[in-house]
């Protein structure tokens, strides 16, 4: 049950599940993501119920610039791929490459976030403020919750990168990296739904 049952250098293939603490973390995080699914499900429902209430503000089909959003989507999906490579490096115990892939993931995430902030600023100039209409409030809440998740993920993974650099890969750091990558995938999946439900459906009307 101890966190140190394996000496460094003899890590098992899946170091994240080598200890009970690790297994608990992974299972607990799966469950947490189940709760997050309900959270985003409720946000989506609210958005769907309110998305036609634009009042005086610009409607979705005029507002959205699909090119920009598609670029953001591409960046975020790529970051999911790089986090897969990171977990692969975790399983083959290559700390250097693990850190490198995590850094790339964080950079891509920051790129996504930058585009999103730019997008929001642009919308506000178009007259689509947070308080404009029920559409705008629910839009910013849904997409903003996702953006906040990305921001949190960036900080979290950055912190893990520092820990990996200092402490190396062991049965304490491995589960942390593993669940952070689960989190990152989850955010990506949510974004795919946002892209479809908010932007594509918004363009169709």
């Amino acid at each position, binding site marked *: 049950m101890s966190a140190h049952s394996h000496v460094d250098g003899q890590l098992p293939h899946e170091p994240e599940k080598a200890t009970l603490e690790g297994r608990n973390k992974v299972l607990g995080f799966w469950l*947490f993501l189940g709760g997050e699914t*309900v*959270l985003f499900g*409720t946000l989506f*429902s*609210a958005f769907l119920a309110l998305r036609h209430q634009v009042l005086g503000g610009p409607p979705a089909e005029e507002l959205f610039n699909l090119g920009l959003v598609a670029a953001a989507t591409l960046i975020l999906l790529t970051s999911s791929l790089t986090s897969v490579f990171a977990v692969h490096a975790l399983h083959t115990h290559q700390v250097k490459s693990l850190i490198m892939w995590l850094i790339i993931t964080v950079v891509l995430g920051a790129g996504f976030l930058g585009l999103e902030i730019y997008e929001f600023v642009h919308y506000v100039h178009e007259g689509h403020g947070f308080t404009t209409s029920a559409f705008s409030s629910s839009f910013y809440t849904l997409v903003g919750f996702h953006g906040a998740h990305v921001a949190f993920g960036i900080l979290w993974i950055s912190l893990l990168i520092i820990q990996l650099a200092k402490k190396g890969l062991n049965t304490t750091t491995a589960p942390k990296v593993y669940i952070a990558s689960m989190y990152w995938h989850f955010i990506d999946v949510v974004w795919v739904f946002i892209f479809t439900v908010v932007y594509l459906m918004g363009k169709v009307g």
Partner: protein
Amino acid sequence: MAHAHAHTHAVKRHSGLMDWLTTVDHKKIGILYLLAGGFFFLVGGLEALLIRIQLWKPMNDFVSADTFNELLTMHGTTMIFLAAMPILFALMNAIVPLQIGARDVAFPFLNSLGFWTFLFGGILLNVSWFTGGAPDAGWTAYAPLAGTTYNGDHGVDYYVLGLQVAGIGTLIGGINFLVTIINMRAPGMTFMRMPMFTWTIFITSALILFAFPALTVGLAALMFDRLFDANFFDPSGGGNAVLWEHIFWIFGHPEVYILILPAFGVISEVISTFSRKRLFGYSSMVFATILIGFLGFMVWAHHMFTTGLGPVANALFSIATMLIAVPTGIKIFNWLFTMWGGSIIFNTANLFAVGFVPTFVMGGVTGVMLAAAPADFQYHDSYFVVAHFHYVIVGGLILGIFSGLHYWWPKMFGRALNETIGKLTFWTFFIGFHLTFFIQHFLGLLGMPRRIWTYLDGLGFNEMNLISTIGAFLMALGTILFLLNIVTTAFKPKNAPADPWEDGRTLEWTIPSPAPEYNFAQTPLVRGYDAYWKEKMDGHKGMTPAEPLGPIHMPSPSILPFFMGVGLFIAALGFMYAPDWGDMFDGFKAGYGVGIFGLLILFGCMFLRSVIDDHGFHIEEEEILKDKGGKA
């Protein structure tokens, strides 16, 4: 367990207040939940008494209409979120790890975090009494009443933020117990050998996981509406007030099953123990629990029959709601058949359990009556509904909690409660309860609306309201007797044996009362359902250990969860008062500064938790043997 350990660590143990602030021991956290939940139960009870005093005669003006609305709102909110749920958390913390043969919960640190966020959320909610007015839009906070148009002061802000903070704690607790039950069972403790109480906590935790995030979103949206002028529920901004009702009840109906399932678990344990019989139909009990949990998510609109969803929706939700009566009925019959032919001992714990059965049936029957949508148009928003939910919540859940507390008190504190006072508690509370609420069915049928401040003379309500108020005072007397019992018991010697009822069937009765820090000196090997009873029947004195005696690894205590609660508390106050406090510097509100400061405390603690590895400490063999020498 891991011998020959790479690191050795000094035993980190605090004492006194510091021990309670930093503890990550599930048994102590259980006691903290009991203290805090018990305190809020008294506060909510006091509010109830004031409500009943106001209503004891027509045209009374004991409290003003505004105060009445505050009392009513705070009574409901406090009882559900700050009293009932935390006391359930107390029981599950104190007992579930013991019942599955575990040394601890899966996430001891998060366990303590859950407690502190709940406590600070609860305190936040109640601070409102002293800062210009408590929330007064009902515990359901329907829009647009809860919006800024009709509630311009900060009352509902406290509701939104207090529940949000407390809700985090609940969600954490749910995940913690799911993982604990899935991953930490002793060898041989298969799912179908788990005690019924553990099963109900398992399903309740799953309901928490899938229901509370909906509340999180609802509260966040209402907060945005109130603090940042969003338009979710405000029709003039394109919002939709009915959306709040949907979100609230998608959470709210599962919530009522979150509350009642653990009570079902307690009743199953107590009735089986004191009938000295195996629980009748164990597997059908498990199945019924799962089914109730599942159906609980499909019936929310029965709270909205009169909202105007249309006949098709009403019919479907009617049928779905009535379906729940089937698994519930299964449980009732299983309890009856468990008692059938048993040698029943009517001590306090069992009196509460046996009293629960017919009382809860009455609540279920009115539930099915309410589930008939056309009839509900008559009952809705009348005292009939008030009677219904008090029969299921007080007559169900609270009787269950009293039963569980009397039953497990020796295990939690090492002293058994006094039986004479206990029985007095039962009879006063039980009679008081029926006196208060039975009559309310008829008040409702006569047309008395719920949530009214006062009523006119000559409507035929007078006598019934008076009886109801007298009943409420009898319940209060029962509660005082219970407190008296706790106090007198605390002065008795701490001498409860491991198996004080002598008929214990489950693992918690195999270890000393109260349980040592590490619960089990040696993890037990479970050989069947009712693990301890099976050993007794096979002529064994105790459990067969599944491991040799050795040092036991324990998690370190931590003060961080406490400060995370403090951080959230400060942040909530800051954001709430930002409109009033003026600017810190040009264009930046002081309130936001305070809010960000609170969040920084929170994130700072999270940062520390992430970077500082917790190696825990070991309890050595000698200490365990010393404990064993004393008792067990």
